[in-house]
């Protein structure tokens, strides 16, 4: 059955409904609507994220999870709804979006490393071109970030020379280099074999423990059970149910959640 999650020390395990001031939230997402043509993909999604929290999004494919993450950093522009990072509005922020995108990192299913650059150049390029850092500091920081994900020894290798797991760890280092407050992970291990999945999840666990705020679309239920502070179940562009892993995975309130989670019972049993 589900292993009990060990609560990271920095998460105080606050109740969902305890009254909090707005500034307790790193990120606030309010009533996001997105259509592609006539296809209504997000139908008014709202949630708040506390500092240091890991939220795992689950739900059938085509439900709008990726679109939701992309609306948060405005890679996709929602028709309606707002996103705040602390007290600053991310939506409708004009050229300031560059700053918000640095503060809201993103990790993709297919890594999207820059194929013409070595691992360390992948990590430092935005430090040079966006943060305008001097080359020595940029290199030093890039190597530090690679070390954080266990990839320092591969600094001079090109993406084509890396395994999927290694490439994904480099892409995490690339996001970390911008000093983000939140990182969005869109199915970071879905393109990986189980073995490689494990090394990426290890890095993500370590990151969560260190206090990083993370939104993770993933169907790694073992990871969700042990790392998430909250799980959000989405279906058809809506949040169906939201709660701590214990409630959402063991005792969901909705039949739809139960049915969806049920599919993963065997997957989660073999974990850890």
């Amino acid at each position, binding site marked *: 059955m589900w292993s009990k999650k060990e609560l990271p020390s920095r998460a105080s395990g606050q109740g969902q409904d305890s009254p909090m001031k707005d500034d307790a939230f790193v990120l606030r997402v309010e009533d996001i609507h997105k259509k592609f043509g006539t296809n209504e993909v997000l139908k008014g999604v709202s949630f708040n994220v506390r500092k240091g929290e890991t939220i795992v999004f689950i739900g059938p494919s085509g439900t709008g999870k990726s679109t939701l993450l992309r609306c948060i950093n405005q890679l996709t522009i929602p028709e309606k709804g707002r996103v705040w990072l602390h007290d600053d509005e991310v939506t409708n922020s004009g050229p300031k979006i560059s700053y918000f995108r640095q503060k809201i990192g993103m990790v993709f299913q297919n890594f999207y490393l820059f194929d013409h650059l070595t691992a360390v150049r992948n990590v430092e390029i*935005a430090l040079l*071109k966006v943060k305008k850092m001097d080359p020595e500091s940029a290199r030093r920081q890039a190597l530090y970030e690679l070390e954080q994900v266990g990839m320092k020894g591969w600094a001079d290798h*090109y993406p084509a020379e890396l395994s999927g797991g290694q490439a994904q760890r480099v892409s995490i280092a690339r996001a970390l280099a911008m000093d983000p407050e939140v990182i969005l992970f869109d199915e970071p291990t879905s393109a990986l074999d189980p073995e490689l999945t494990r090394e990426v999840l290890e890095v993500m666990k370590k990151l969560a423990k260190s206090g990083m705020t993370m939104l993770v679309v993933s169907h790694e239920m073992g990871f969700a059970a042990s790392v998430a502070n909250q799980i959000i179940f989405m279906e058809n562009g809506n949040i169906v149910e939201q709660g701590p892993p214990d409630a959402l995975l063991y005792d969901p309130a909705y039949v739809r959640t139960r049915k969806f989670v049920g599919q993963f019972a065997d997957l989660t049993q073999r974990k850890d």
Partner: protein
Amino acid sequence: MDVTSILAEWTPYLIGGISLTLGLVAIALGIGVALGLPFALVQVYGPRPAKAAISAYAWFFRGLPVLVLLFLFYFGIFPAMGLDLPAFFVGAVVLGLRGAAYQSQIFRGAIQSINEGQMIAALSLGMTRLTAIKSIILPQSLRIALPGWSNEYPEILTDSAICYAIGVAELLTRTSQIVAVTYVTMPIYLCCALIFILLNYAGMRVIHVVEKRVAIPGFGAGAG
């Protein structure tokens, strides 16, 4: 007078022709890249009307025989614009404008072959679209374009001989003049052919060296 001494006598004249031929090629390639690359960027990232304008441009320059283009510009378009340009210049410009039409297609294909995700990743790091194009998209697409683009060199080199028709004193024109004066035909034309082959070979070697130098593991041509 035997063939060797005729050739020796006319060598300086032929060398002058070679330099005009290479001048045509260099200017044409320069114009081709200088226009072809921005055209390609517009075709991929630009607004719809600009895309349409460049498609029309490419259609025009690729749809007409070089000779027709050459006459059209030399006897028609430039004079009508009140420009009295030397034949050499008109030849180089026409070859360049035509090259741009072909090269824009080569560059466009290369840009589009870059996984769209890399642009998204670049934006997600806070890069502007322009920075992403400069730092991420172009370094890759130029490498990918290089093998296809390198065919432009022999294309334009061989096409340059058509400037004979408007009297540019390039290699073929001078060869024909020598033949007319000396009545030696076969050896002189063979010599001209040999020079074209050598120019071709030398240029391709240079491009090959460049390809090797910019090669990246697991990436594009000439790479492992």
